[in-house]
């Protein structure tokens, strides 16, 4: 019985540790200042956040009445509002963790990277 438990405990621990290492790796990446806004995996906007002087909003409209309003400020970008039910993308706040801001229902994605990575994504 003990031996039978060893394999599942090992698998769980391995996935957990690998996942934690991955999380730390993702969150400790250098934060860039180039924001890219995608909808349905197509690049719509590329914004250099350091050169933004006056804050402004960008509205992304979908084919079926979906709407995402994105707030662009000097050095930061965030989802101001969204027409989706859960508003997870709004509660994600600014993209400061290196994770993209994602609105799954409306298929909108905001990525903040540095220039080189931006080129790699585009290619």
């Amino acid at each position, binding site marked *: 019985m003990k031996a039978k438990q060893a394999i599942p405990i090992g698998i769980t621990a391995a996935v957990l540790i690998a*996942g934690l290492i991955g999380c730390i790796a993702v969150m400790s990446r250098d934060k860039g200042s180039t924001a890219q806004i995608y909808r349905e995996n197509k690049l719509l906007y590329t914004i250099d956040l350091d050169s933004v002087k006056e804050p402004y909003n960008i509205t992304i409209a979908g084919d079926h009445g979906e709407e995402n309003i994105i707030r662009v400020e000097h050095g930061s970008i965030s989802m101001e509002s969204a027409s989706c039910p859960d508003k997870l993308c709004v509660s994600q706040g600014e993209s400061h963790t290196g994770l993209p801001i994602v609105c799954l229902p409306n298929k909108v994605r905001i990525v903040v990277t540095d220039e080189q990575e931006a080129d790699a994504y585009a290619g």
Partner: protein
Amino acid sequence: MHMQAKEIAALGVFAAAGAGIHAAEALLPPIVPIPGIKPGLANIITLMVLRRYSPRAAAMVLIVRIAIAALLSGNVSGLAYSLAGGILSFAVSAFVYRVLGRDGLWFAGVAGALAHNGAQFAIAVFIMGKGVLVYAPFLAVAGCITGLFTGLAAKFASDKLSP
């Protein structure tokens, strides 16, 4: 295919409990602001039925629970995703339980949660492109934690339940 009236009644109670948990969980604010991470507490009920009755009974309770919860929360458009994720996750849980037996119930929870997150993630990558791949480690960690919680909760609750 023949079921005892007592068993049918009990499964109805389990399905109702699961639907209640499922709907209540949908009302909670997100714990972490990452899409696709949720506790999946209703899975405790599915795992309990899997151990107490049979995979077939658990599958029936699962489908009834998801259908009722969709109607309760008014989110019928999410029904197809919910069913697809739930059935895949259950298939993995049932397989693990078959291989490991009673002592593996907690791992059936972990494997099911990871399968659920994996399937959701695959759909997200398909729709959104590879830019969302950086979410993978977060979903893996979340699957381990929520799966451990639901799996162990199902184990302890089943141990306390009178035979």
